[in-house]
């Protein structure tokens, strides 16, 4: 059931090359909202950001400020960044 759902939900990272932006959809059951907020804040330096939080999903829109940033990997980098943030928050006393 879960596997089909993940496929049905479609891509968790949607790349819009025309508008030069990436939409990342995160599941709050797996990704801590505080870590997502902190990550968005960190990405503000290199991207224009937009954060929308609902009950069952967190949507982040990232639009790179520089052309040097690869839009194809930006969303996945963000996913990894959030996981890293969660790890560092976990080990903080």
């Amino acid at each position, binding site marked *: *059931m*879960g*596997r089909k*759902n*993940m496929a049905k*939900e479609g891509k*968790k*990272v949607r790349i819009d090359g025309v508008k030069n932006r990436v939409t990342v959809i995160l*599941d709050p*059951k*797996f*990704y801590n909202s505080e870590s997502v907020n902190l990550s968005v804040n960190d990405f503000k330096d290199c991207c224009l950001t937009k954060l929308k939080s609902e009950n069952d999903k967190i949507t982040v829109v990232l639009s790179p400020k520089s052309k040097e940033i690869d839009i194809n*990997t930006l969303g*996945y*980098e963000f*996913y*990894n960044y959030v*996981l*890293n943030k*969660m*790890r560092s928050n976990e080990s903080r006393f």
Partner: protein
Amino acid sequence: MTKKSGGSSIDNIEINEEGNYLLVSINPKIYGLDIVYYATYVLMDRAYAILGGDPEREILVELRPKDNTDLETLGMEFNNELLNYAVYMKQSAKNQKLREAILQRVLMTNLAPAEGKEPKGPIEDPEGITTPWEEKTWQKKEKKLE
């Protein structure tokens, strides 16, 4: 095109060669969410990871290699990491009391004796070490004046 790897009856890896990613399905009754996080952290420098599914029924991990790593190898390595951390967590839980006892012993070594265990009454001081310096000098001066 999506295909299943290998011919094992407990296969949990689904490979999508066109999209260059793989999907690992995990039973949360066998590997808890904590173990999944740890295993994902290990592979994060080599692959992009996305967690999804249902934490109660089936956890799904999507892995996209950053370089030209073989998808099936990556999936197998992820499975190994899951097992690695499952064993670690189990051993850690087993040794928890022992670790706590050792840590408590270490911290207790430098603590002052607990209340009630302190010696009662005056302490024997034949050489007058506990007497303050000022008192000693005043006593000497007073004796001289007498």
